[in-house]
């Protein structure tokens, strides 16, 4: 607490930066928008008229930026020398930085949200304003959960670049994996009890915690019914559970985090080691709509890109035997699956 009190001034800059960005991407379009352009033929707002999708995407960016901004200091040798030598244990150190980031992002969010709703109200958009309250709290919960998830992911790395790539990786790769599973199930139609696919091909990653919550609650604000949540209620619940578990494990189980590993290769199972093969598999299975010759070419290109991923991971061109075998076997297996799907 003493640290936060003494250093509150250093929180002002990132908050101001985030509020400016939020104003430009979310508030300004509302301010300069035409109310009539947001209405359908029956005079009601159409789905998306409230600009909440942009707010949700902005908050996704904020929840990616703040963990990297706050925790990158622990991923440099110099920063580690300072923070790990201070009279504070790792749990308290992580919690302090976590709370600092939380204050920054919630402050930015509250300010941008208030600016947005005030502008919307002044401009006279015909929304159901009561529902801005659940929208506010829904997005706040989603923001905290997604931020917590990203903090946990970032701290699995040994360098800022690795951490940033992990966070970005978890934004896209689970969604690609989800789509590849859906396409496999649709193609092979396995008779597995209890396995039901609702056919919703949404973007299923931790970003659902903001995008889905935002879009779902915005539909009440807009009085629009076109947003189809599909399985995303359940998936959001799963990601929320994962986020809570991840942050609790990160803050209360610090014994595996070693300052001596900083700037070394990030070997965590929650990093490159898992993300690269899953990405490779998902992309190759996901291109089954091509004919076989094109599919083989693209599978080769994806495998080559995955090799680059291993080069970044291991920081050398001649990758380890383990990585090489993984690269080849995932490439071959996913290509066979993709060919079978395309038949």
């Amino acid at each position, binding site marked *: 607490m003493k*640290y936060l009190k003494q250093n509150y001034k*250093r929180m002002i800059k990132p908050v101001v930066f985030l509020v400016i960005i939020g104003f430009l991407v979310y508030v300004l379009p509302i301010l300069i928008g035409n109310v009539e352009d947001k209405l359908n033929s029956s005079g009601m707002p159409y789905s998306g008229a409230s600009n909440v999708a942009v707010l949700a995407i902005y908050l996704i960016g904020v929840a990616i930026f703040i963990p990297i901004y706050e925790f990158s200091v622990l991923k440099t040798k110099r920063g580690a020398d*300072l923070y790990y*030598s201070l*009279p504070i244990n790792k749990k308290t150190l992580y919690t302090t930085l976590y709370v600092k980031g939380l204050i920054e992002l919630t402050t930015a969010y509250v300010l941008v949200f208030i600016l947005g709703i005030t502008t919307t109200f002044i401009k006279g958009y015909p929304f159901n304003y009561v529902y801005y309250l659940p929208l506010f709290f829904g997005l706040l919960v989603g923001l905290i959960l997604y931020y917590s998830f990203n903090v946990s992911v970032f701290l699995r790395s040994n360098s800022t670049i690795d951490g940033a790539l992990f966070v970005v990786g978890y934004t896209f790769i689970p969604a690609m994996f989800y789509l590849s599973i859906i396409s496999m199930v649709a193609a092979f139609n396995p008779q597995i009890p209890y396995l039901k696919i609702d056919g919703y091909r949404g973007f299923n990653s931790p970003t659902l915690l903001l995008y889905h919550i935002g879009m779902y609650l915005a539909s009440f604000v807009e009085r629009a019914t076109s947003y189809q949540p599909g399985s995303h209620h359940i998936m959001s619940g799963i990601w929320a559970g994962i986020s809570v578990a991840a942050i609790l494990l990160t803050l209360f189980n610090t014994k595996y985090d*070693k300052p001596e590993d900083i700037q070394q290769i990030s070997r965590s199972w929650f990093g490159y080691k898992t993300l690269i093969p899953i990405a490779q598999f998902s992309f190759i299975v996901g291109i089954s709509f091509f004919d076989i010759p094109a599919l083989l070419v693209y599978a080769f290109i994806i495998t080559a890109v995955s090799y680059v991923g291993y080069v970044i991971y291991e920081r050398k061109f001649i990758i380890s035997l383990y990585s090489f075998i993984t690269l080849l076997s995932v490439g071959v297996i996913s290509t066979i699956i993709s060919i079978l799907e395309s038949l």
Partner: protein
Amino acid sequence: MTVIEIRNVYKSFGSNNVLNDLSLTIKKGSIFGLVGINGAGKSTLLRLISGVYRCDQGSIHIEGERVFENKHIKEKIFFLPDDPYYAYNLTGLELKNLYGSYYDLDEALLYKHLDTFKLDIQKPIHNYSKGMKRQLFISLAIACKPQYILLDEVFDGLDPLARLHFKRAIIELSTNHQSTIIISSHALRELEDICDSYGLIDHQTIVSEGEIASILSDMYKFQVAFKKEVSRKDFKDFDVKSYSVEGKIIKIAIKGNKDTFLKYIESFDPILIDEINVSFEDLFIKEVEARGYLK
């Protein structure tokens, strides 16, 4: 009284063994010089003592308590690495606030040192020169008045005047506050001025340690010129620590009885015998030479 006890410490980074079965004890109020060639493991040892790293094996106790993740003990330790961290655009004042959040910082003492060094702490640290940064961190370290100060390559970038001021402040802290200070440095002459004991790290462990004055008082160094040619073999009965020849003049350092050596040397009817002061640097060079370096 021993306050820092390092027992059979092992530390490696992957396959690179940095410290191997290292043991060392340091007394309360001591100013301890940690020396060794580049890459010997001095900085790693300081990081282990300060609780930044954890030993793979062995233990480090300060005042009988383990250091790693021990807030109570770490409150008494100030670790100043060779390249200390500061955030971009951070001012000296903000850095003072950061340390003030964790240590019982004596502001009057801090401003006294800052005044001596003529530092403006309102300025961002990245605008300071290397020496000014060092002066700022040293001032902070001293103002925190910790029981244990660990300083890595602390003389780097300091001008002679700043070095003098720093050495005085360190001696004052050790004398008045009974602080135990460990300084890792290659500036051996500076270490000799302030350190009472030393430890030499080589081959991942402490190979030589002791009280500097006591070890140096037992060593003698002479510059001798002879009429006839002599060789090192002629001194085989003595504990020769270093031996060099420049024309007809030899420089020889021995450990043992000075009078016996002088009597022996006079039997060669020398033209000249001069006794030279043995410095800590001589001791260091002797030790590293004995281990196969500098050949």
